[in-house]
């Protein structure tokens, strides 16, 4: 076989280097902190270079038959009897784009982490090296998801990420005091793990069904038109197999990318370190969920999920839209910098899912990619702000502690949290570089939904199904997304003003200084990328700035599903119908409105120290305080889950425990009762037997003895008078005999019995030292015995032969 080397084959080495870095650090280099993070960053750097090569090669790849996808030679990977699973790489435009961003973002985050967790500080994190090792494994998992060519490898990488998220979220597991959301990091990690496992269960069921139906999990086999047609026409559970599989896969995606109702884990991840958040929310984990929908997009198209609709909206799109709206509502009232971004992540991924659900493939991928960039930038910026606040706090403590004994200082003393935006303010001049990066990220974030909405009007499915675009206004998902766009702009503005505008509201904010270059440089790099990349994806029909440069992104990614040609044709056709502009205009109006309201509420007159959050105050005034509280509590969904699932399983465990051994002192559980019952039944039985013995049997025996006594008295009379002489003689003889017997009894039999007793006792005394109570000694004896037996066995065998 001639092996045609293609540059794209390099793709299979991309996940390898972070993986190697993980192995090297966790096995060999973990004692040397500096070496550890250098290894991890180096591994990622190599991955980045390879990924860039692959990306540019993929971009220049000619459009073949079946879209612009490349698949490498497969190797046999899992061989189970007749079944063979193969492993290879699969690079289509979506994967290429992901390959462009993921290593870049990961590398930025890694470099940032070095600055964020100073390794030469006195109170350095004891798990510093491990932290970097996990980060590296995390990145390897994500890269694996992107490059491999079958769903099983996808699933394995996916689970690697889930585990890493759990491990990394527990980085600060000593932190026992409840943080902002009253959940400890340990619990947050556990929650994330459990909720994503629910999704993994769906995913796995989907995979099993898919494998049974298709006999392969490779994309090439699943996503070819014939297979899809067959899957769509096979009836299953009252609908088609394709639908069931798509729904199961979507269950997995929904849990991973935190879609309603499985979104609960994501907001709590804010308890983890900020770089980890950037990994989970932006660069890798949550994006992977949406990427699953991107991957399985042909399946979703073939399935009836689109038809299986709520209010005329395809199911997937509906879930996405509800999530986008709900999460952005929750984000509006957050005080925690990171918590707000977490909700924003959920909301933005809702957009991605909604876009994919209505068939706007390109829009979905673009949103996914750009969101990853913006959110990484914002998270890292938030980390910089938090570090700044912490440092400011230390300064305040060092110099002004005595002066702060007034009521204000007391308040701050009790409830200081470096993440609380209420305590910030005026950081614009104190952290200029962070501010600009934040501004770029925030602006990009608030424009992003707009671009997606503008794609919406030209989405493939909306056109393909023949739904006239003017009908857009009658669709609930459109309105939800539009409102969410407004809210996105509003909460971004709110945050920017709260953190950076006005006077500093606490001593800590006053003493904040710009973070070290190791933190701000990644921010600058990311900001530059965000600005540059945005131009690539702006749709041609965007007002004013659209069409200045060709919409390269749409053509490239769209070519995966054959939509690129269509878009090009439309472009060359010149212009676009005016009614298609309408949704975009609406979105623009809402977003600008959101920004304007944000400015009016927070920017026009900056908040003063000790002032209540304006939004909260306003809602209180409008008698909407209950709504504010509800949103702060994330619409009570966590609470409901806690009350039902968590408390339910605790109750079940308690019930089982009670069933087993009983909770209270003296009370007995059923199982214990049963066991004890058997015991006491035995005792009662033996009591009864004893009673029978002493009362009935003894009485009988006594009575018999009495009868025989009487008889013997009678006989005695005859005896004394008639047979005494002979009997006396016999008695003497018998006495002699019995004396002999007694001697035999005392000496011989007793001797034997006592001898046995003594032997057993001395044996016990001899064995006693072995009974140390140490299980390992017992095991040792068992092992030695077995060895001795085996030896004997072999010797016997030898002798016989």
């Amino acid at each position, binding site marked *: 076989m001639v092996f045609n080397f293609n540059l794209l084959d390099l793709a299979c080495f991309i996940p390898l280097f972070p993986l190697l870095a993980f192995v090297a650090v966790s096995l060999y280099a973990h004692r040397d902190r500096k070496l550890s993070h250098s290894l991890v960053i180096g591994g990622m750097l190599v991955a980045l270079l390879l990924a860039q090569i692959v990306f540019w090669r993929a971009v220049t790849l000619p459009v073949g038959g079946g879209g612009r996808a490349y698949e490498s030679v497969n190797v046999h990977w899992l061989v*189970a009897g007749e079944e063979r699973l193969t492993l290879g790489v699969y690079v289509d435009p979506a994967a290429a784009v992901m390959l462009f961003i993921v290593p870049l973002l990961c590398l930025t985050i890694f470099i940032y982490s070095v600055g964020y967790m100073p390794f030469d500080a006195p109170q350095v994190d004891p798990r510093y090296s491990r932290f970097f090792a996990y980060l590296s494994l995390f990145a390897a998992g994500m890269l694996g998801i992107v490059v491999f060519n079958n769903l099983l490898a996808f699933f394995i990488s996916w689970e690697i990420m889930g585990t890493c998220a759990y491990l990394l979220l527990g980085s600060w597991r000593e932190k026992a005091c409840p943080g902002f959301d009253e959940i400890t990091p340990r619990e947050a990690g556990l929650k994330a793990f459990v909720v994503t496992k629910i999704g993994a269960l769906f995913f796995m069921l989907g995979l099993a069904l898919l494998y049974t139906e298709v006999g392969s999990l490779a994309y090439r086999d699943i996503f070819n038109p014939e297979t899809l047609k067959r899957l769509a026409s096979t009836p299953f559970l009252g609908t088609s197999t394709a639908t069931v599989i798509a729904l199961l896969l979507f269950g997995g995606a929904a849990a991973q990318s935190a879609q309603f109702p499985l979104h609960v884990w994501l907001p709590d991840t804010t308890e983890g370190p900020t770089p980890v958040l950037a990994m989970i929310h932006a660069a890798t984990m949550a994006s992977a969920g949406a990427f699953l929908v991107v991957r399985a997009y042909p399946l979703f198209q073939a399935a009836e999920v689109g038809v299986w609709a709520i209010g005329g909206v395809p199911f997937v799109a509906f879930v996405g839209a509800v999530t986008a709206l709900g999460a952005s509502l929750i984000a509006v009232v957050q005080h925690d910098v990171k918590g707000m971004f977490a909700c924003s992540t959920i909301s933005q991924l809702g957009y991605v899912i909604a876009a994919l659900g209505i068939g706007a493939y390109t829009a979905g991928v673009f949103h996914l990619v750009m969101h990853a960039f913006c959110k990484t930038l914002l998270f890292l910026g938030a980390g910089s702000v938090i570090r700044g606040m912490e440092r400011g706090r230390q300064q305040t403590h060092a110099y002004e502690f005595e002066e702060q004994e007034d009521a204000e200082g007391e308040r701050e003393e009790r409830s200081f949290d470096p993440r609380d935006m209420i305590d910030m303010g005026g950081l614009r001049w104190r952290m200029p570089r962070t501010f600009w990066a934040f501004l770029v990220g925030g602006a990009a974030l608030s424009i992003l939904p707009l671009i997606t909405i503008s794609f919406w009007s030209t989405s493939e499915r909306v056109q393909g199904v023949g739904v006239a675009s003017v009908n857009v206004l009658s669709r609930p998902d459109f309105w939800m997304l539009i409102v969410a766009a407004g809210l996105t702009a509003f909460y971004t503005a709110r945050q920017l003003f709260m953190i950076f505008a006005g006077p500093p509201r606490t001593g800590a904010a006053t003493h904040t200084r710009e973070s070290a270059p190791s933190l701000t440089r990644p921010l600058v790099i990311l900001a530059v990328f965000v600005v540059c990349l945005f131009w690539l994806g702006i749709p041609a029909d965007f007002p004013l700035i659209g069409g200045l440069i060709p919409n390269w992104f749409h053509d490239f990614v769209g070519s995966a599903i054959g939509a690129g040609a269509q878009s090009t044709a439309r472009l060359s056709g010149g212009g676009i119908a005016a009614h298609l502009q309408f949704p975009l205009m609406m979105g623009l109006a809402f977003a600008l409105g959101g920004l304007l309201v944000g400015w009016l509420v927070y920017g026009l007159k900056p908040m003063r120290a000790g002032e209540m959050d304006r939004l909260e105050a306003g809602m209180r005034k409008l008698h909407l305080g209950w709504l504010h509280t509800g949103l702060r509590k994330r619409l009570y969904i966590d609470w409901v889950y806690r009350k039902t699932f968590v408390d339910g399983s605790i109750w079940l465990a308690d019930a089982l425990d009670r069933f087993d051994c009983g909770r209270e002192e003296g009370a007995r559980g059923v199982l214990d009762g049963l066991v004890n019952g058997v015991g006491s039944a035995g005792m009662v039985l033996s009591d009864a037997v004893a009673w029978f013995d002493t009362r009935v049997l003894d009485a009988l025996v006594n009575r018999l003895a009495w009868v025989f006594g009487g008889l013997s008295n009678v006989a005695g009379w005859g005896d004394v008078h008639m047979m005494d002489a002979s009997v006396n003689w016999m008695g003497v003889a018998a006495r002699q005999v019995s004396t002999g017997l007694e001697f035999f009894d005392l000496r011989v039999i007793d001797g034997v019995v006592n001898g046995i007793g003594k032997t057993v006792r001395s044996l016990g005394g001899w064995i006693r030292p072995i009974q140390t109570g*140490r299980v*390992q000694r017992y*095991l040792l004896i068992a*092992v030695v015995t077995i060895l001795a037996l085996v030896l004997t066995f072999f010797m016997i065998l030898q002798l016989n032969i």
Partner: protein
Amino acid sequence: MIYGIPLEWYLILAAVLFCIGIYGVLARRNAVVTLMCIELMLNAVNINLLAFWRYLEPGGALGQAFVVFVYVVTIAAAGVGLALIVALWRTHATVNLEDVNRLAG
């Protein structure tokens, strides 16, 4: 390619792993390490199962099925073992097996 490696090598590897496991179980004081060594022994058995299956009966997937079954049992055992260690920690505040000798007669 795989047949280039003789079966015995796998068996030797498994035996070595098993011995390491036994040594660990007998000699190490830490309950967690002991548990890990037990897992090691089970995995040595798994290697044997797989090697025999691959070399002697490569037709069906019996060896793999066995190994998966062992995995399930192993995981259950690890769960119970870790729960025991946690319970040990809570009651005795130690995971050192030397200090746990309530079985002493």
